[in-house]
């Protein structure tokens, strides 16, 4: 792995290249690869050129930071003032918010260059990005495979070197799983560490923005730039001052292995992770067996809570104030019904109905309330596990990238593939997915490193060991802006 951001940043600061020139290179490569990959759904090249001009000024003035002048992408569910933000849904067609998400205003202030908004499952609901209104993005490693999801567009863009990095969002694995499918790094911070203000909600108590990058170093740089308490998000929390320090020292590190994470995981994925863990052991880490029985229940809990919150969060899309409005209605109620019927895709409708059901009177106690209780059990069992170990190692997904179209006929199977990622969201923990070899078919495998709450820097540091010891290599796409 190499730190694309560090390399580009030093080139920019040394004057070897200007941000304007670098931006044009990325634009050229996007125009070349995006028609195939469908990673970007809204291109914001005017904005990118303006951002680059501002960045070059900052660099000249000696005010550059690590991200100044570096082109990147945002998932299409992060609000950008005056620029399309549609959650890849027909119902938000034409929406240009009139305010910026906190993460975007933070990056903009540092001179980041926004190339465009990337593809995703509609409203982040899915694990393949195929429910996008704009069609699925393709996996740059193998274009017959899905990118994973829901932040599939960011994963494809970063993998294909048509963005130096990107911000995704993770509700049940939507950063980590596509990172794993596309062979890149995806980091989901502790719930609250990064402001959600401007992130269009799916499951509010689970959603978290995080970086998707070519290296752990890059993930730490981006994380440092976007984290911290935000007055506009009451669920955000303060994070430690200063840079995240990476030194990759794993001597004495206690790695927890919970068998529950490996149930039904194919042998090639399991042995790839075993190999990685063995390398850590050789460097002085210790393996500790832990048991987290409630993990088995995390998946149903996730689908109940996420869908319940989604059914409420998505109630506002009625065609009255913004986005798509159906025609040929006879009354306000009819307008709202027609708009929602025509504006939402199948997967979104399914989850709204599920969520509405579990919150309905008569079913609330049996589903939603029970799910909240089990959520507490997952939280406390994971906290207990962390009394015995510093981090947990687990597969990011029990499978590598599906073939395109597979999930359509295998909905339950696709839901089940979230089994390894959702516990982290349920418990609000930080977790990173880094590449960990490939399967028999050459598709990337991801290993997940999970930490306790607010232990984000430890998670990054543990992953950094893999980066500096050559244990983890990102997928090598032969195209785009190669540095």
């Amino acid at each position, binding site marked *: 792995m190499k730190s694309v951001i560090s390399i580009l940043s030093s080139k920019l600061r040394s004057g070897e290249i200007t941000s304007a020139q670098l931006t044009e290179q990325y634009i050229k490569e996007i125009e070349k690869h995006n028609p195939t990959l469908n990673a970007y759904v809204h291109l914001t090249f005017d904005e990118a050129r303006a951002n680059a001009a501002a960045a070059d000024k900052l660099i000249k003035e000696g005010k550059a930071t690590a991200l100044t002048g570096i082109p990147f992408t945002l998932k299409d569910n992060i609000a950008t003032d005056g620029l399309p933000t549609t959650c890849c849904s027909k119902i938000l067609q034409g929406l240009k918010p009139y305010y910026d998400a906190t993460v975007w205003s933070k990056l903009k202030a540092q001179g980041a260059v926004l190339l465009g908004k990337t593809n995703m499952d509609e409203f982040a609901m899915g694990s393949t990005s195929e429910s996008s209104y704009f069609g699925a993005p393709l996996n740059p490693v193998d274009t017959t495979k899905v990118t994973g999801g829901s932040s599939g567009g960011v994963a494809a863009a970063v993998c294909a070197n048509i963005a130096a990095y990107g911000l995704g969002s993770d509700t049940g694995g939507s950063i980590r799983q596509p990172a794993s499918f596309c062979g890149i790094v995806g980091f989901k911070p502790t719930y609250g560490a990064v402001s959600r*203000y401007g992130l269009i909600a799916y*499951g509010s108590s689970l959603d978290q923005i995080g970086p998707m990058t070519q290296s752990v170093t890059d993930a730490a740089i981006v994380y440092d730039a976007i984290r911290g308490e935000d007055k506009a998000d009451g669920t955000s929390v303060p994070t430690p001052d200063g840079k995240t320090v990476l030194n990759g020292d794993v001597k004495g590190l206690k790695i927890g292995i919970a068998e529950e994470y490996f149930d039904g995981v194919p042998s090639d994925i399991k042995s790839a992770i075993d190999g990685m863990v063995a390398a850590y052991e050789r460097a002085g880490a210790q393996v500790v067996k832990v048991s987290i029985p409630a993990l088995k229940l995390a998946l149903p809990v996730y689908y109940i809570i996420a869908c319940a919150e989604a059914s409420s969060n998505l109630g506002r899309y009625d065609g009255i104030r913004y986005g798509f409005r159906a025609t040929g209605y006879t009354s306000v109620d009819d307008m709202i019904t027609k708009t929602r019927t025509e504006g939402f895709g199948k997967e979104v409708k399914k989850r709204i109905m599920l969520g509405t059901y579990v919150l309905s009177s008569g079913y609330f106690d049996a589903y939603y309330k029970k799910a909240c209780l089990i959520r507490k059990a997952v939280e406390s069992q994971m906290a207990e596990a962390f009394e015995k170990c510093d981090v947990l190692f687990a597969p990011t997904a029990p499978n590598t990238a599906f073939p395109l179209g597979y999930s359509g006929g295998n909905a339950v199977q696709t839901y089940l593939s979230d089994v390894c990622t959702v516990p982290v969201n349920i418990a609000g923990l930080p977790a990173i997915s880094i590449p960990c070899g490939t399967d028999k078919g050459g598709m990337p495998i991801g290993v997940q490193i999970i930490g306790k709450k607010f232990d984000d820097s430890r998670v990054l540091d543990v992953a950094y060991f893999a980066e500096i010891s050559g244990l983890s290599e990102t997928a090598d796409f032969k195209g785009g802006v190669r540095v």
Partner: protein
Amino acid sequence: MKYRLVSGLETHVELATATKIFCGCTTAFGGSPNTHCCPVCTGQPGALPVLNKKVVEYAIRAGLATHCTINTTTHLDRKNYCYPDLPKAYQISQFDKPLCEHGYVELESGKRIGITRIHIEEDAGKLVHESGFTYVDYNRGGVPLIEIVSEPDISSPEEAKEYVEKLQLIMRYIGVSDCKMQEGSMRCDVNISVMPEGATEFGTRTEIKNMNSISYIEKAMAYEYERQIEVIEGGGKIVQATLRYDEHTGETSVMRTKEDAQDYRYFPEPDILTVVIPESKVEEIKNSLPELPTDKLHRYIDELKINPATAKLLYKYKRVCDFAERAFALGAGVKNTVNLIVGTLYSKLETEEDKEKFVLPVSADEMAALVKLVDDGKINITLAQKTLSAMAEEGKPVSAYIKPEDIAGMDDGELESICRQAVEANAGAVADFKAGKEKAIFALYGFVKKATQGKADIKKADEIIKKLILG
């Protein structure tokens, strides 16, 4: 058969915080449509609510003033329903853990109307229907409300009226709301049922929504009471329903019945963390509460010996009381102060609102100075009234009307000489008085008043005159 009326009220009170409950927008009434708005209060995708601490504080004030217990660990909930004036399709409210519970409001009879709960929530926007189109104005969206839910303890329209007036009074006293029903900053839903006298089980209730005047509440309740009895007497059954009251016809009609009641799918608001209020904060708020209206009324009557009728005219207006109490503190006598306020100043303040605002160019200092002249017998009450009236109109100090020499000149010797003149000039009246016609003495008072231009202390003059006549 005789029927008992059973009623409980749900009262929405807009809180007078400067900004909205979840964003920094102003709560000012009016304004061009959609100008007091931002991404948060119009529910733009991705925007998040942040709870205004002042709202919690105000609601706790309201709770403490109505003798509630405060839930110091509480949370907000989403109430999901779809309506164009509700931009998120859910209202952030409180469901199973309201901020305040188990209070009461005491009526003058001593009867207590129980308060079940008080919770905080956001107001919705407003639909404007114009020439066949419907427009939405979100200025009011996100204005903080408290909903005060009473127990079904109200048993007549008169009690409902008094209960609402008392609530209004309390909320104004503690400064959490102006409670203007005509502007919608106070609105009531009236739950009402009837049951045969002596019965133990409540009848089926109906709910009259959105009443915005006390007199309509009384009228609607009276109408609904009669209507329900008529249905029952006619062998029918009351259908649980939400009703609207037509101010023009004075009748209620059905908006929706229980069958199409909404399922609000309440669940805890994930965007706002659990609210934990330190006990010390509750104490601090408790200590900052002013004397409450009922306590003040009792103190006025029992301790200050103000006659009950006058005390009732005063205690309803907190600013008037503050003014009077400042004058008392400056040494003005209670009786003359309150009589001058009720007799003279109230004539300048015609409406309830005028008295509520109490804007007059008379300071408590000047008021006290004037009252002290009366207290000390330097001027009589009639002159004081005339002077105060002029002060209230012209905004000048007492000294502009009553010169020191006017007062200083009226020593006892001078008064006695005037009284002597009065006796001499009114021989007939003196004779009548001596013959037992007590009222004849008024002629002599009149003489003294005229001769002293009203500055004489008639009480003193009375003593002197009687001494002169009767020896």
